[in-house]
């Protein structure tokens, strides 16, 4: 501690607030691990939870006539975003997630493009003050396998005893692919994530709408609501984001120059905005812009193509 004439008085005062405890490294490490695990689990915007939701949407989205096509798999690209206050991670499907690696820092946009396979969009100069740090996360594939007994069990637990789960569904797989995700991180917790749209593959000849209805019912959605949701998605497929039913969030559609997007505001304990996220998906790109301020998130999203 370097000294000056006020030293002893200030030092003696500040000494009284020196912690009398020693930091518990093991507890800190455990907290860090738990947060990291939680972050991975709640990576709604960029990983498995979104993929889980999206896979369900894919199943719901495909009209029955398409499923009759003479293809082993039907591939589908989502170009819309929707939000449901459900926990889709509770879907009674056996899920396997594979990825080719961790998030990597890259020095510039050219390298990001080389790794991700697409040129990331950034807002033009003047929208944000500094250059971002860029990272690229490798592709993620999610395979969900249907086990009839699991679905029957989940339906039984929520009291849905009026339905029959076809035995031929046993072992069928739904596959979701999320391409590389580019993250641009700016000061003040501003982040832009972007990726190619999610691709989904489902076996042809599968009773998609029926499965969607049962899937929603298995996590507690009522019969008529589940049926309505299935119809909605069949009419206009979407990348589905799930938000816990007890989460305090505001979701609204906002109109950007490039088209509609969703604004999702997450509130802290005292009602202040904790995160404001603008999510948009097109046939060519999906992205989310997040910051601690809704106007800023919208402004940045509006500056993207």
């Amino acid at each position: 501690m370097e000294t000056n004439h006020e030293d002893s008085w200030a030092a003696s005062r500040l000494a009284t607030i020196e912690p009398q405890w020693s930091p518990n490294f093991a507890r800190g490490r455990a907290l860090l691990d738990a947060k990291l695990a939680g972050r991975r689990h709640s990576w709604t915007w960029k990983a498995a939870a979104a993929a889980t939701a999206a896979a369900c949407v894919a199943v719901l989205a495909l009209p029955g006539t398409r499923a009759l096509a003479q293809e082993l798999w039907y591939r589908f690209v989502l170009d819309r975003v929707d939000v449901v206050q459900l926990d889709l991670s509770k879907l009674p499907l056996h899920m396997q997630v594979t990825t080719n690696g961790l998030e990597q820092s890259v020095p510039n946009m050219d390298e990001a493009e080389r790794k991700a396979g697409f040129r990331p969009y950034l807002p033009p100069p003047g929208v944000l003050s500094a250059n971002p740090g860029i990272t690229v996360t490798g592709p993620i594939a999610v395979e969900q396998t249907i086990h009839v007994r699991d679905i029957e069990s989940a339906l039984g637990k929520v009291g849905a005893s009026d339905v029959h789960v076809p035995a031929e569904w046993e072992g069928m797989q739904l596959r979701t692919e999320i391409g590389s995700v580019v993250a641009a991180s700016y000061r003040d917790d501003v982040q832009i994530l972007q990726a190619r749209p999610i691709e989904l593959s489902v076996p042809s000849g599968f009773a998609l709408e029926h499965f969607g209805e049962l899937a929603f019912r298995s996590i507690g959605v009522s019969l008529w609501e589940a049926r309505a949701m299935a119809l909605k998605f069949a009419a206009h497929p979407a990348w589905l984001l799930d938000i816990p039913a007890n989460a305090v969030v505001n979701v609204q559609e906002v109109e950007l120059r490039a088209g509609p997007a969703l604004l999702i505001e997450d509130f802290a304990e005292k009602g202040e905005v904790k995160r404001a996220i603008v999510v948009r998906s097109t046939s060519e790109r999906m992205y989310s812009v997040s910051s601690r301020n809704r106007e800023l998130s919208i402004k940045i999203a509006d500056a993207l193509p």
Partner: protein
Amino acid sequence: MADPSEMEVANPEGLDAIFRAHYERIARVIGMVIHDQARAEELAVEVFLKWWRNPLAHGEHAAGWLYRTSVREALDELRRQTRRSRFERLFDFVRESPPTPEQLYAVNAEQHRVRTALGALNRRHAELLLLWSQGLNHQEIAVALAVDSNYVGSLVSRAQEALRKEYLKRYGNQS
């Protein structure tokens, strides 16, 4: 061996290295402002997670970024606590040997006064004092707060003076 703050850090191994190197000191800095050990440790972990998420904070100035962010987090938390009138936490003092009630009262009351005065200072003064009190030298403080190292001495002096004035204004010459 490379300084952990200079390692490639956008991966769990990098985070692990810098966490090992700095966690205890960061937790103590926060602990000066936030009396509750558990809360101070939680905030320290949040600081590391923020650092991990922010590639701009990586590299040679990682330690400075950690200190700056930790004092800001701590001061923000103190102000939140003040607003919520949750100072009862300040009296959950844990010591190795039990103090007498008089000692406990005197120590806690003084801590309360110092923290209140510290929380009433402008942010830059409070940041300077917290880092100075942790034994950071002028160069380290300059890096952490992005100020010219030639001015750190005078800035610290002004911050000390501000603390003294704020304390005396509120409590008089009680110490």
